[in-house]
């Protein structure tokens, strides 16, 4: 599904990713854990195609196609969703308008029919309930004045509406309380299926209590330094990242 091969990324003159390889087959949820500065956000930006995060070497294969070099929206239309660690505020654009515009842009790019206004309202109301956002928020400018937790719920709302093929969750758990963590777990678990993959990037183990990963990888010094089953997360929690920083 998402296969990363020998990925190198240089940001602002410093090589951050130094030959990272990773394979998340369809139907699986993988977690990447790592200390601060290990390259976690660089990985998500490189995969999603942010300016300034171009790979100097390697490949990112999404369902067999190398997506490096594609525009971020083209990657999105191919079904790649990035849940941002720090979601944007867009003053002046109503939340509903924004999400519908994005959804239909993706659908158009895939040659699918656009969703009508009526269907969309039905859809967004249903999903908003799922993520715990009340309707009033949907009429407000996108994310403006929302709390950190609400912004993360807004990311989950979009995840639920777009139903992407592959989602990267970049530090989605940061700043969330237990109820919100559970909600994130519910949304992700409901979407888990044989055709979909997830990559959960996190510093702590706590989100992984709600989303059981199939595999856990340790990112340190720009490379995956260790991979293992779900139990690896608990082990890390106990022993810390120290050993890997040195190893890297």
């Amino acid at each position, binding site marked *: 599904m998402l296969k990363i091969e020998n990925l190198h990324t240089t940001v602002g003159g410093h090589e951050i990713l130094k030959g990272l390889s990773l394979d998340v087959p369809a139907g699986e949820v993988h977690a990447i854990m790592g200390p601060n500065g290990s390259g976690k956000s660089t990985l998500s930006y490189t995969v999603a195609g942010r300016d300034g995060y171009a790979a100097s070497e390697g490949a990112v294969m999404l369902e067999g196609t190398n997506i490096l070099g594609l525009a971020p*929206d083209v990657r999105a239309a191919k079904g790649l969703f990035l849940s941002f660690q720090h979601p944007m505020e867009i003053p002046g*654009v109503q939340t509903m308008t*924004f999400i519908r515009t994005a959804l239909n*842009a993706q659908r158009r*790019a895939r040659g699918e029919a656009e969703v009508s206004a009526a269907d969309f309202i039905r859809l967004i109301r249903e999903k908003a309930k799922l993520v715990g956002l009340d309707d009033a928020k949907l009429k407000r400018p996108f994310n403006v004045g929302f709390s950190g937790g609400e912004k993360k719920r807004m990311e989950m709302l979009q995840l639920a509406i777009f139903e992407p093929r592959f989602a990267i969750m970049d530090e989605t758990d940061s700043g969330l309380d237990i109820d919100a963590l559970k909600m994130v777990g519910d949304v992700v678990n409901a979407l888990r299926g044989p055709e979909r993959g997830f990559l959960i990037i996190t510093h702590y183990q706590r989100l992984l209590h709600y989303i059981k990963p199939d595999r856990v990888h340790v990112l340190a010094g720009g490379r995956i330094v260790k991979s293992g089953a779900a139990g690896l997360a608990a082990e890390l929690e106990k022993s810390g990242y120290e050993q890997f920083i040195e190893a890297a």
Partner: protein
Amino acid sequence: MSEALFNNPTPFEVDLQAAFAGRAKATGAQAAAFERFAKLGFPNRRIEGWKWSDFHGALRKLTPANDAEAQGDIAPSEFAALNPLEFRIINGQIELPQGELPDGLRYGVVEPVATIPELERHAIVNLNIAMTGKALGIEVGENTPDRPILIRHINTNAAFAFTQTMMRVSANARARLIETYEGEGSGFYSHLFHMVVRDGAQFHRTVVHQTGADQIVNAVCAAKIDADAAFNQTSLSTGSRLSRHETIVHLWAQGGSAEINSAALLCDDRHADFTTHVVHKAPHCRTRQIHKGVARDRARNVFQGKFEVEREAQKTDAKMTANALLLSDTAEANHKPELEIYADDVECAHGSTCGALDADALFYLRQRGLNEAAARALLVEAFLGEVLDGVDDERLGDIFRNKIADWLVYE
């Protein structure tokens, strides 16, 4: 009238002088105004308040076409959907609407103003007073039905045209005015709008500047707002060779309010100048102002906003925001948000920002699937959002949104 009136007259000034001399009957006040104009000359960069809008330079280059008869059929206004009462001022000639007068509304062709004391140092206003023969007069009574008034200023292939509008909104009345500045070809148009909003009345003015690229326009609105009256203005401009819309609001009595919002969407070599001056003369007045300027190519956006709070105007509450968005390396934004305050118990603030589209926001939208053009357009629309929010008529808001969308497609 002797040649000596002007120092080194430009061809345009020579034409103006000939035109003034050729007028059938100029009053003494008009002759005095012309002399004041001649002494001042067209404003240039060295004049404080005009440093970013050089009328002297632009008019020097104006080639008089004076081909006013070439006026063809005029297409219906896009504001026709609002069923307005439509006035047209075509190359300076006033055309009144036909048919029955709505209740409470009076209008006609009237004598122009002889002087506006606070604008005596405004060269173009002086010229306007000297040159304008007849003015359009409109009076809105208390019980006039809420039907918009549309004034279309159409200046086509005219070397120069001068007009005035005088409008009074009676106590407790409501009036909605839409003004469009239209017309192709090169020319100079000066409009002086003198208006009074009486106690408790509400006045909404919408100004759309959508002329061809070569027009040079200076429109000056001087408004007096009485007690508890409201002046609400929204402007949208796509600019032209040189365009300057000035709004001078005097909040004359307690409880008056002004809301002045403007947006400029500029491309190519277009220029738009919004200059406003709100004078708070009485206690408990409130002003809100938002300006948003978007410029690409070599366009130039100018915003000069001034709040003045006189000694008597305690408890004034005034806020001004000006934001500029530059979409290309050669576009320009010039801001001068000014406060002049003589009363101590007031709350006055202004903020100004200038920058490009936010790269983080752009990436976020691309990640959500919008292509570059759509993402940029959405962000520009979002940037303008606060001005659109100030439009309380939904149909008007839709027309604005469509205009912005049209511009963005071009962007």
